[in-house]
């Protein structure tokens, strides 16, 4: 039963163009921007204060493209779910699979698996190309905490996509979902996380907490109450909440 639905969802996801272009965009933007910022950082290193040099984190710098690349992952996550509603496909889907939980979680499982594969590949490629740009200041994959950060980068991209799937399952409309998620992750979360007045709350937002996994060198003034895995755990709680909300919405409402 579940394997049938998983196979069906795989056919769905591979047979629409939006899957290819959203994921390609996520890969290209993350890698290209990461390389660019790594190259710029290498040239600026000599001009940095001693303090900044001490907390220089080559691994984290190579992931600088993730902030923009994650937006494409958000679009991917939103479209995978909300396309069902915007196209009317949901009526065919639920007539074929009336067990709504099985339907939703099979869809999410397939999209998550694909996100994880793409996310991990992106994360590794981004790391190695970014380090190549950094030249003498580069980190090695074998350095303490680096492998954790690189794998974590892939997981981070996956969790962002999953969070978006949950939000889309709650809101149903692609425009509404994107209209909330894009500005939130691109602007609002950054503002809340960096303004001292709201920092205490901002640091618990999914992307702020989750991105801690990609840091290898802890900044000097860092007073975050969680470590890399703790941060990822906070992000996971957000994802679980969004998916639970999406499931309850689907369960309760008419299709």
């Amino acid at each position, binding site marked *: 039963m579940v394997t049938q639905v998983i*196979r069906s969802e795989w056919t*769905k996801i591979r047979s629409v163009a939006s899957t290819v272009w959203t994921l390609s965009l996520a890969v290209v933007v993350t890698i290209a921007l990461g390389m660019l910022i790594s190259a710029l950082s290498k040239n600026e290193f000599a001009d940095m204060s001693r303090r900044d040099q001490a907390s220089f984190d080559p691994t984290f710098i190579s992931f600088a493209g993730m902030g923009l690349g994650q937006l494409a992952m958000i679009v991917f996550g939103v479209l995978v779910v909300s396309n069902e509603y915007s196209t*009317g496909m949901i009526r065919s889907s639920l007539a074929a699979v009336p067990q709504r939980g099985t339907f939703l979680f099979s869809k999410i499982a397939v999209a998550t698996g694909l996100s994880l594969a793409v996310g991990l590949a992106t994360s590794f490629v981004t790391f190695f190309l970014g380090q190549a740009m950094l030249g003498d200041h580069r980190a090695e994959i074998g350095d303490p905490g680096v492998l954790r950060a690189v794998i974590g980068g892939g997981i981070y991209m996956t969790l962002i996509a999953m969070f978006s799937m949950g939000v889309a399952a709650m809101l149903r409309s692609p425009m509404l979902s994107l209209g909330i998620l894009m500005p939130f992750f691109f602007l609002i979360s950054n503002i809340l996380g960096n303004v001292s007045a709201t920092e205490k709350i901002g640091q618990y937002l999914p992307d702020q907490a989750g991105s801690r996994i990609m840091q290898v060198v802890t900044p000097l003034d860092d007073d975050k109450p969680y470590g890399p895995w703790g941060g990822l755990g906070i992000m996971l709680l957000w994802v679980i909440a969004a998916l639970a909300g999406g499931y309850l919405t689907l369960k309760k409402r008419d299709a």
Partner: protein
Amino acid sequence: MSRFSVGGMIELTGLTKRYGEKVAVNNLTFGVRPGIVTGFLGPNGAGKSTTMRMILGLDRPTAGDVRIDGKHYDQLKDPLTYIGALLEAKAWHGGRSAYNHLLCLAQSNGIPGSRVREVLDTVGLTAVAKKKTKGFSMGMGQRLGIAGALLGDPRILMFDEPVNGLDPEGIHWIRNLMKSLAAQGRTVFVSSHLMSEMALTADHLVVIGQGRLLADTSMPDFIARNSRAYVRIRTPQRERLLDVLHEAGITAVENGNGTLEVDGGKSEQIGELAARHQVVLHELSPQQASLEEAFMQLTAESVEYHAHTEAPTRPPQQRQQQWGADWKRS
């Protein structure tokens, strides 16, 4: 006799759907049985699509119950092999090809991929199977929806307004398809807002208006009961003819455009009476009210009946304004 002599029943019991204050489907109880085409007739907005969505478990009933062979829809294993449905609204992703659309539905119900090619062939979409469905005409879309309904070779088929958007050839094709599906012993439940369409395809008729059941009857019975025969008369000696008819015990009703109408098929009797009393007739013609009129009368009566129960003490002009408000009750 047929492959489907057992099963294939749809049973609705007190099925009700309320959207806030509005009652879309009101306490519907009827059954749909195999081997015949059952027409589901009602004006637009009568609740036909909502009823069909509840049968498929897409919408949840506010009250009441609908079962397929005694089971709720979500208790059916691989439901597409029990019941296939063509829904009124488009129900596919325009960026996906017809083949992949049907393939993902087939896979979810354990239906082999070879069946996808079969149904594409049946509905005549093989040539465009690999094309994205967003380029499809309305008629091609209907055919794709029908292919989806046939996919699981189900014993129950449900079509919501299937002739919409089809050209005459397509309409002819779908009528024959429904009849042959029923002849194979399957249950065919088809909605329409056109009486004329139902008269051509349905063996049994379920009529609803404003979400309520108005009739559940065989087609011949419906025709016999509802197609009123009357005689239309035009005469320059109206008063004299009315007297003559009155003496003979015949009631004539004056129509607005100067004609008289007499119920029943009494044209010979009236002609003889007129001749005997030397009344000039300009017209004496037997008429048959169409099924369409009968249907409109039936649904109009339901509206009127609601209005009376809603506001028995109100003056008529106010009652008119209250027609749409009967759902405020219950």
